[in-house]
């Protein structure tokens, strides 16, 4: 199963302060461990929210809101995509991560949906319809 591991922002990442050499080295080593264990599928760091934007949907209206955004601790500063055997294994790997910030920082672990996670509620007919939709969505791109 796959997990998306979200590194939350703090005031430094939001201010665009680049990590210290020490932290970069530690993170590099950690990422190497993940690769050597065959766990890491992908991962990236994100620019501060000041460079981002949001699109708010409200009925038929779409409103663009430019960054930065206020709720720092809820923002994402980077992510990994891991393939592991269980949620507990993802937690164990996160616990090994070097402390990414000066103050309190949180790393969030979220499981990625697989087709089978929908269980029997997703009947073959529904699933086929969903796959058709997806195919159309891709064809339109």
């Amino acid at each position, binding site marked *: 199963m796959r997990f998306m591991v979200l590194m939350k922002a703090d005031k430094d990442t939001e201010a665009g302060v680049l990590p210290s050499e020490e932290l970069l080295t530690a993170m590099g080593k950690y990422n190497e461990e993940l690769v050597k*264990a065959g766990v890491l599928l992908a991962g990236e760091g994100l620019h501060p929210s000041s460079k981002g934007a949001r699109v708010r949907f409200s009925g038929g209206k779409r409103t663009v809101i430019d960054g930065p955004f206020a709720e720092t601790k809820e923002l994402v500063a980077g992510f990994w995509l891991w393939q592991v055997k269980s949620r507990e294994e993802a937690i164990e790997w996160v616990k090994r991560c070097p402390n990414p910030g000066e103050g309190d920082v949180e790393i969030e672990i979220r499981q990625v949906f697989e087709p089978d996670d929908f269980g029997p509620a997703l009947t073959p007919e529904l699933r086929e319809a969903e796959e058709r939709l997806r195919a159309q969505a891709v064809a339109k791109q």
Partner: protein
Amino acid sequence: MTDSTTHRAIHAVWRIESARLIAGLTRMVRDVGLAEELAQDALVAALEQWPKSGVPNNPGAWLTATAKHRAIDLLRRGKRLQRKHEELGHEAEQETAVPDLDEVIDNDVGDDLLRLMLISCHPVLSTEARVALTLRLLGGLTTEEIARAFLVAEPTVAQRIVRAKRTLAEAHVPFEVPRGDELVARLSSVLEVIYLVFNEGYSATAGDDWIRPALCEDALRLGRILAELVPKEPEVHGLVALMEIQASRLRARVGPTGEPVLLLDQNRALWDRLLIRRGLAALERAGALGGEQGPYVLQAEIAACHARATTAAETDWARIAKLYETLAQRMPSPVVELNRAVAVGMAFGPAAGLELVDVLTAERSLAGYHLLPSVRGDLLTKLGRFDEARAELERAASLTRNARERHLLLERAEACARASRGPSQ
């Protein structure tokens, strides 16, 4: 934390740490079976203590320290025993100095893991034993999980593992990384085992048991680990590339009612782009190392041709035909030749494909292989030789053991019969 959450956490730690732990211990005690017992003892100790004390901050170090203490006790006891023997005047010339154990277990983790992979896939063991031992020692799977994955009884797997360990001990198989050609030969056995595990998961299409598809993930993980242990071996990256690209199609190769969907009919929107990208990257790593392309690299190149084509019609069949030609030289096999015939038929027209297939009809090893008449029937249909095509497709239907496939073949045979009668009737 409740007991069960602690237990789950312990098993997660075990999955992460067990292979390295067993590998380090094997180097100390020079016996895989004993090393695994020591590691298991440490696991049991954790299961006893952690629910009360909580999971330690560095659980891997805790397990290592616990197992190491037991190993040291064991070695000292052995040494004391030996001294006694010496006092009694027995011959005991063997070198049994207790080495600097911290160093032994902490250094060269990578080499130890590689040694463990090589010994688990040692040619002295049967294929089944290699698979079971690899999944158990390197994949961290339980005997029960292995048994379920391979649809055999648990005691059978347990026995295979016990026997495998005994065989390794009796044959005094050294815990080592050979050099040069011997390393390449030994690695090929590891690659074979990993690909076998992958295919076991891959061929179990819609099965009710979720463990079988999980085998693909186990194999991929082992392959990715191996690629970091021996980064300079192109065939290892070739196998990883092949598995990543094949795994990218897992979602597309089974239809809504569980029927298999052939490659060219698959909905490519369902292919996992991330895995394809990873596969292509692994293939690039293999290519960058240079040298002659081995069978895994070539098969991965063929898989990559399909992965790169946005639609089935865009497939570069000429390149695939060329790759099969090279593969047939490196790894001559009638099945490879049949695949080449299909590619040639797609690239240069059905007549060219048929020419190659006709040569194969004399091949004895393909006599009962349903894909031969199936491919031949397909090419004959395209050439408008419907009567011959029908006979071939019917023959293919009688040879396949898969009911769905038989049904499909008979439908195509029937279509040939209608075409043969012509539109007026």
